[in-house]
Every structure is written in structure tokens, then in C-alpha cells.
């Protein structure tokens, strides 16, 4: 009986302590090299630091007090609490790609806000404007009809629009779960050796079109080339 009580006491202290310690390491892992950028917007880094701090405090409190949990329940709670860490590791250095796009709807182009008139005029030059998909989408009426060059991930939809392709990135407000695809539609004539999720740079004149009832940015493609991934979280723009 005494042995059982002692065993329960050890489990009551060690399991929650180990779980909280694992989370301390997980938050440390996410902070290292800014890995949390792959899941959250950079401004949320402060929350990761706070979490690391609170988890450390909780681990210490478990070290000195333990819990009164039923042993089996404590093990179950511990296992479940550890699960996300395994999936964080499994996600590796990847970002959302074309599969996520296939399950989401692309954001519509928006009217420009707070763009001064001289700047808007300056952007309408004959050379392709090198810009981001985010800027093009968010200040659409400034760039409508311009020749632009943008970089993004390549995606070939399957189904009725299979003569089209999309070059896209994601716009994140808080975390990757709310990521909204933003991008341009192109005709994929003569595009070969480019696969889904390859990084490409495309150049051409952009205008609006309605495809399947949705307003999208369409590019009259002049040039497309494969590029290297700019950075590990380059698929994301942060709102």
C-alpha cells in the first residue's frame, strides 16, 4: 500500500513536470532561429516568450507540489498535452503549400488605401514593376493594367480550370490556420517542368477577370522562370 502511494506520488510529480519541461524545450525550439514564424506572425513572438516563462513557472510548481491526479488520468493528460509537440516537429521547416490552397478560396483584390497620388502615378511605368503579391492584391486599383513582376508558389488546379495556373502566397493575420491565399491566375500554355509548390517569378500585364463567380487578378503572362525559395517562411506575408 505504502509502495503504491509512493509510486503514485512519484508519477504525480514526474509526469506533469516532464510534460511542462517538454513544452519549455518546445517553446525554446520555436524561438531558436525564429521557427515560430512558420506558424505565427512575427509580432506574436512575445507570446511565445511569455509561454516559455509561464511553462517554466508551472514546471517548477509541479516540481515542488505535484498533483493529486489519478495515476492513469495523469498519464493520459500528459500524453495528450505532449501531442502537439510531436506535430510541431513533424511539420519541420515546411509552410502551407498548394494543397491548402486547393481547400481555400483566394482573397479578392482590394482597393488601395492610404496611397498618395504621386506614388500611384510613379508606379505606372512601362518597365515591369517588381513587387510582392501582397502589395499587388492590397493596392489593386493602383496597379490595375500595369506590367508587373511577382514571385510566388506555383499551383496547377485540377478539374474544370486545368488550363489555368495560380501563383500565390498566403496572408497571415494571426496564425497559419487563418492563412488566406492571395495570388494571380495565369494561362499555363507552354509551361513545362514546373510542379506544384515550385517557386516562380512571373512577369506580365495584370487585369481583373471573373472566374467561377469570383473576381481574380489575371496576368497576361510574358515570362515565367523558376526561382529558389527566398526564405523558409517566404510563402507567408503577415498582415
Amino acid at each position, binding site marked *: 500500500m505504502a509502495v503504491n502511494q509512493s509510486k503514485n506520488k512519484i508519477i504525480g510529480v514526474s509526469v506533469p513536470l516532464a510534460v511542462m519541461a517538454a513544452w519549455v524545450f518546445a517553446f525554446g525550439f520555436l524561438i531558436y532561429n525564429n521557427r515560430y514564424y512558420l506558424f505565427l506572425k512575427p509580432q506574436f513572438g512575445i507570446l511565445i516568450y511569455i509561454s516559455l516563462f509561464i511553462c517554466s513557472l508551472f514546471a517548477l510548481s509541479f516540481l515542488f507540489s505535484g498533483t*493529486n491526479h489519478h495515476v492513469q488520468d495523469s498519464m493520459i493528460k500528459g500524453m*495528450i498535452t505532449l501531442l502537439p509537440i510531436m506535430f510541431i516537429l513533424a511539420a519541420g521547416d515546411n509552410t502551407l503549400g498548394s494543397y491548402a490552397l486547393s481547400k481555400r478560396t483566394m482573397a479578392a483584390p482590394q482597393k488601395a488605401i492610404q496611397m498618395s497620388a504621386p506614388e500611384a502615378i510613379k508606379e505606372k511605368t512601362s518597365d515591369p514593376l517588381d513587387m510582392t503579391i501582397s502589395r499587388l492584391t492590397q493596392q489593386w486599383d493602383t496597379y490595375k493594367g500595369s506590367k508587373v513582376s511577382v514571385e510566388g508558389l506555383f499551383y496547377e488546379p485540377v478539374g474544370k480550370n486545368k488550363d489555368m495556373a495560380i501563383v500565390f502566397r498566403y496572408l497571415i493575420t494571426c496564425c497559419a*490556420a487563418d492563412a488566406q491565399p492571395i495570388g494571380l491566375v495565369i494561362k499555363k500554355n507552354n509551361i513545362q517542368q514546373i510542379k506544384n509548390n515550385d517557386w516562380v517569378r512571373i512577369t506580365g500585364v495584370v487585369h481583373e477577370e471573373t472566374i467561377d463567380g469570383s473576381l481574380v487578378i489575371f496576368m497576361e503572362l510574358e515570362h515565367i522562370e523558376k526561382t529558389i525559395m527566398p526564405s523558409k517562411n517566404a510563402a507567408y506575408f503577415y498582415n
Partner: protein
Amino acid sequence: MKYIDNDLKNTPFPIAPGCGCQPHEVQVKAVSSVGRNIQVLFIVSALILVTFHPRSEQFITFSIIFSSIILEAFPFMLLGTLLGGFIEVFLSRERLINLLPKKKHDAIVLAALLGIIFPVCECAIVPVVRKFLNKGMPLGSAVAFLLAGPIVNPLVFASTCVAYSFNFKIAVLRSFAGFFIAVTIGLIIDSCLSKTQTLIETTPAHTCSLCHDNANLKNQSLRKKVFAAFQHGAADFYDIGRFLIIGAFIAAALQTFVSRQVFTSVLTGPVTAIVSMMVLAVVLNLCSEADAFIASSFQSAGVPFSAQLAFLVLGPMLDIKLIMMYLSVFTKKMIITLSSLVIFFVFFAMLFLEVSGWL
């Protein structure tokens, strides 16, 4: 003590004095065998998935979405449980009663407005409400705070304004709708259900030696009290974190494998649009500070404002991870009642707004 007794008599809610803790010889009530089996099955399935699944794009997408929901929610939940720990140690029942208005209706209205000065999101609010209920907060007030808190808070108001290009009408309507629905449901729950019918039996999941004797607690140093607050917070987090994780897991699976076009394809009339957007709010499990950006993206698809508002009001009150987290506080009967009332009132409030032409 006499003063406290008088106070207790004056309040319409019978609240016993004390801090809410049971003697620490009491073991935490074991999880029911059915609940335990479901959780074991969940662990085994998730472990098999993470260990043996080929690293396909679907799996990576699922892992990213699941991890993102958790990483976004965990900091708030940790803060919520820590705050709950401090409430447990530093706020006595008597003080809580003194802070609340004596009239039941006033207490509910005040609780629904608490979110304005107490800006917590839906992940942080559940552990706080759990502590408030343990402390003796009236059920109706707790429900009103739980439902309205994540909507009326200023951060959510600001993010809604930004998402809708400073169209204040949407943000104001969202706050008002959230407030009125929360107060209405708080009043109904308070009149129809008692705490014994609605709250699960909880006993402390820690060995805090300070809280079981108020006199003892009052005589302790601040350092010991703070440590006791950490103990409470840690135990609460360990106890209810799993509900968030299971909810996030289901939500991530739905976000990964179910196309959003399934929902948007039926957005033809106002009624179907409201229903679809309500289903989407429950499925997506978005933070109330981010959901306005998603809702506003449906404007281009011609989704009526009433349906967008339904998404904005329902999401912070009811989604999969919240339903799972409610399991740590409420009985199944209460969760079903609460969910039904929330769905009913949000739907008819939005339908009224649509028909009345206010939007």
C-alpha cells in the same frame, strides 16, 4: 464575519464562504471509463498518425494547421490558467460577492460587460470562468461573461474595424449583438438551470496547502501566496489543456480535408448564407481577434453582411475547441443547452437584422 453573512443573505445566489478548495486529501475525481477510453483512442490514433504517416503534403498541412491553432491558443490559455490561479488565491468568495451587484439582472449585465476592462480571448476565458464559478460567481453571470467577453473586448473591436476598412457599423453591431445574446442566454440559464445541473464536479488537482483555510491563507507571506497561485494555475492547465488539444485536432482535420467551397457553394439566400457561415465559424475555430479578416474576405463572394456577422458573433461563443473546453467546466446537458441557445439566438438575431434592413 457578520458583515459577510449579511452580504450572503442579500445576494440572490447562495454562496458559501471559503476559498472554493476542498481538503487536499480528496483525490481528483477519476475520468469516467468511457471518457478515458475515448482519450486513449485519441492518443493512439494521433501517435500512429504522427509516427507512420508518409510525409505527404496533406499530413504536413494538417501538422502546420494543428500546431498553429495550438501555438496561437496556448499562450492565452497559459495566461488564463495563471490568472485563474491568482483569482483562486487572492480573490475570496466574499470579495467576489461584494464586487457583484446584488440584483441578479444587474450582475449578468455587468458580467457581460466585463470583457471591456478584462480583454481575454475565448481560449483564456474558459479557465477564468471555471475559477469564477468555483469561487461562487452566479451561473448566469458566468455564462454572460463567457459568451460576451471575447466579443466586447476592445482588441476585437479594433481588429473588426481594421478588417472592414473602418466600417464601424459592423464592429458596433458585432459588439452589441454579442452583448445582447450573452445577456439573454445568461438570464435564461440562470432562471432555468441550477449549478448542480450544469457544473461538473471538480476537486483540486493540486496539493496546495494554503487555500483550505482562509485564516491560514491570510497569514501567509506574499511569496507563498504567489507560489500557491502558480500551483493552482499549473494544475488547471494540466487538467484542461487536453480539451483544447483534442478540439484543435478535430478543427485542424476539418480545415485540412474539407474544402471551404463546400460552405461557400450554398451561400445563395440569406438563410442558407447565415447557416453556412455559422457552420464555418464552428469548424474554423478562429481566434476572435483574427476572424474578422476571414469574414470580410467573404464580401467579394457576395455573402450578406448578416451572414458575416453571424460568423463573427458565433465563432467566439461556440466552436469545436470551445465545446471541448466547456467539458472541463459544464455537464454535457449544460453544453447541449448552451450550444442550442447560442445557435438559436445568433441565427434569429441575424435573420432579424437581415429582414429589418439594418445591414
